[in-house]
């Protein structure tokens, strides 16, 4: 009997191999308008879809004009998609991204996972970079176990945003603030504040400011969980009472979007939110319409703010790390960073915050001095291994306490115990 050639199986094999070979192409081989300064290189960058990214995009043209051999392809994505994309690219043999922006809770996990390149040598080797000029809390976020993996892109430290036509002077004390917003709400025209008690990240980001105001903390300097404390219980009780007496009714699932709309729409007199929301709200062409110009910013009541920050980092598997650093160091250099902030970017360098040209061309001296004060006393939401999970855990129990599913005592003790477990998990492995 004649042996038939196994054509179907060969075909299967060829198709499977073809599919397996489908992957991102090597962009570095793409020809472009290179010059004599070096091999043409295309850098792929992932960023978030936010106003600060638009400002960076406007500066990219200047960079490409100066560095003719380097072309940037920036992909701006909604926040919820970014982390998954960065992880996928970092695990791939052929990476999608050369430059990634990293949110502060991700930093330790990304660094430990080998997703990011060490930057210390680059920073030291860059003349005139003045790394120490970045606000210290922002710098610290990019450092993991003594090694620098990220340099600040922009800050999103929390502040008190309020209507200056309703609130004469922002209260510096949390109890005064609680009384004030309760009074405004009881008058009935607007609510005193719009809160963001949505389960997970949002509630923890907001409540952390209350926690600090009552003298509590999530961890101590050595990273031990210190959440199970009388201060934390007091902060949660106060938060719940204010939610029940002063916040918009039935707003338990509210996140950033709802709170912003309530404030921009004139329904609420204040919110604890990112300091750079002020220019957005005061923009006459923005969401606030006729109310633009009536918003002001102050430090959060209590003075110590929860700090968020995005950092620039180079993907650990990038084939073009030198060119990636060329771009990052150019954009975050004192000179270009000043241009970025004048254009509306959220500040990171202390020299830029104190620059009179920035004051006059930007949003005025008061704004930058307030931001400088906020950055001086701000602490990241959570840092350490599995920080993202810790934020979710604490945020779930806080939300359950407001919903009445857990008592304040249960919520705090469970959140602390589970946070401790999550922080410990990676270090064991």
């Amino acid at each position, binding site marked *: 009997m004649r042996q038939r050639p196994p*054509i*179907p*199986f060969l*075909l*299967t*094999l060829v*198709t*499977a191999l073809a*599919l*397996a070979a489908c992957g991102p192409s090597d962009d570095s081989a793409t020809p472009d308008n290179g010059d004599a300064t070096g091999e043409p290189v295309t850098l792929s960058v992932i960023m978030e879809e936010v106003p600060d990214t638009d400002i960076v995009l406007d500066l990219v043209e200047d960079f490409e004009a100066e560095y003719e051999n380097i072309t940037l392809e920036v992909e701006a994505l909604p926040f*919820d998609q970014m*982390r*998954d994309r960065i*992880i996928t690219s970092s*695990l791939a043999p052929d990476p999608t991204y050369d430059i990634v922006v990293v949110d502060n809770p991700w930093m330790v*996990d*990304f660094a*430990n*996972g080998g997703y990011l390149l060490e930057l210390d040598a680059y920073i030291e080797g860059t003349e005139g970079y003045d790394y120490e000029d970045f606000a210290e809390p922002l710098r610290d976020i990019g450092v993991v176990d003594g090694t620098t993996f990220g340099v600040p892109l922009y800050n999103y430290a929390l502040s008190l945003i309020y209507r200056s036509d309703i609130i004469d002077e922002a209260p510096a004390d949390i109890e005064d603030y609680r009384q004030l917003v309760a009074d405004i709400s009881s008058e009935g025209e607007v609510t005193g504040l719009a809160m963001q008690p*949505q*389960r*997970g990240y949002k509630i923890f980001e907001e409540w952390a400011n209350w926690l600090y105001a009552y003298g509590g903390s999530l961890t101590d300097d050595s990273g031990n969980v210190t959440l199970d404390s009388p201060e934390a219980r007091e902060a949660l009780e106060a938060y719940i009472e204010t939610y029940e007496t002063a916040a*918009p*009714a*039935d*707003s*338990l*699932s509210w*996140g950033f979007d*709802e709170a912003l*709309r*309530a404030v921009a*729409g004139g*329904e609420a007199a204040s919110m604890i939110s990112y300091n750079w929301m002020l220019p957005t709200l005061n923009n006459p062409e923005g969401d606030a319409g006729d109310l633009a110009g009536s918003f002001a910013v102050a430090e959060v009541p209590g003075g110590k703010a929860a700090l968020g920050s995005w950092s620039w980092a180079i993907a650990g598997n990038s084939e073009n790390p030198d060119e990636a650093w060329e771009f990052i160091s150019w954009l975050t250099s004192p000179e270009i960073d000043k241009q970025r902030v004048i254009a509306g970017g959220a500040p990171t360098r202390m020299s830029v915050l104190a620059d009179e040209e920035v004051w006059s061309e930007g949003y005025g001296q008061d704004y930058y001095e307030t931001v400088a004060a906020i950055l001086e006393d701000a602490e990241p939401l959570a840092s350490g291994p*599995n920080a*993202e*999970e810790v934020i*979710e855990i604490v945020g*779930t129990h806080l*939300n*359950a306490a*407001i*919903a*009445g*599913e*857990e008592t304040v005592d249960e919520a705090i003790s469970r959140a602390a115990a589970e946070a401790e477990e*999550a922080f410990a998990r*990676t270090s064991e*492995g």
Partner: protein
Amino acid sequence: MKAGEQGLKQTVTGAPERLGRLLVMPLLAILGAVLIYPVLFTARVSVQDYRLNALDQVEFIGTEHYASLITNATFINALRNTAVFVVTAVTLELILGLALALAVQRLGPTRDGVRSILLMPMFVTPIAVGLIFRFLLNQQLGLIPPLLDLFGFRIDFFGPDLALLSLALIDVWQWTPLMFLMMLAGLESLPKAPFEAARVDGASTWFTFRRVTLPLLRPAIIIAVVIRMLDALRVFEYVFAITRGGPGQTTDTIQYLIYRVGFQFFRLGEASAMAYVLVAFVLVLVAVLIWLTRKGESA
């Protein structure tokens, strides 16, 4: 002669068979690459301490993940929430879909137009539906609560008591049209004779529906319920867009939990074990429903 005929027959029937096998191979290769490989990979990962941020420390740990799920309160809560969501949504969709199908079947020339309009919610992407309802049902910023206020109703749609039901109702809004379509197709394919016989015998409308329509429609109903259940089990978008599993853990569903554990918290091994437990539940459910169909056919 006889042998020649047989040879000819073999050639005629053999060639298309070979060609058929040949043509199906690319499809099998694609399925192998995109379906079978991930299924096997997930099975392997579920018995390993597989964490995306510690890939150099992957170890075989046997059934540890599966054993830990038995006492994992979050997992059990998510399974329970998902079950409540699926049963509520699919039951309401079946009742409404069948009622709409019966009504539309009797329509005259307007039937096609009505059918097209009824199908519209199905064509909106679920994440957009989630975002639309997040704001429509918002007490301060939404359209629906002020309307309810006019009639003296005040409902906290995303409060701890109603959030899961609200998500199920959003699913009903979006997917009743599919149920309606499947029911209408089922009704239109039914034989006319039993209905005529019932009419001749003077059976009432309700009696005809209960004793003729429903038994005849049984296979179509079971298939439609299986399809919708499998789909509803995957609920993710509404949770992600609206509640993020809250208040507390009241809307934590299994897919949202698997996503969080696997991708947000990097523990792909544990998430894979959860996925396999879910698959086991689904297989049992589908087997029971298919058994019910067969039982109905043989009865």
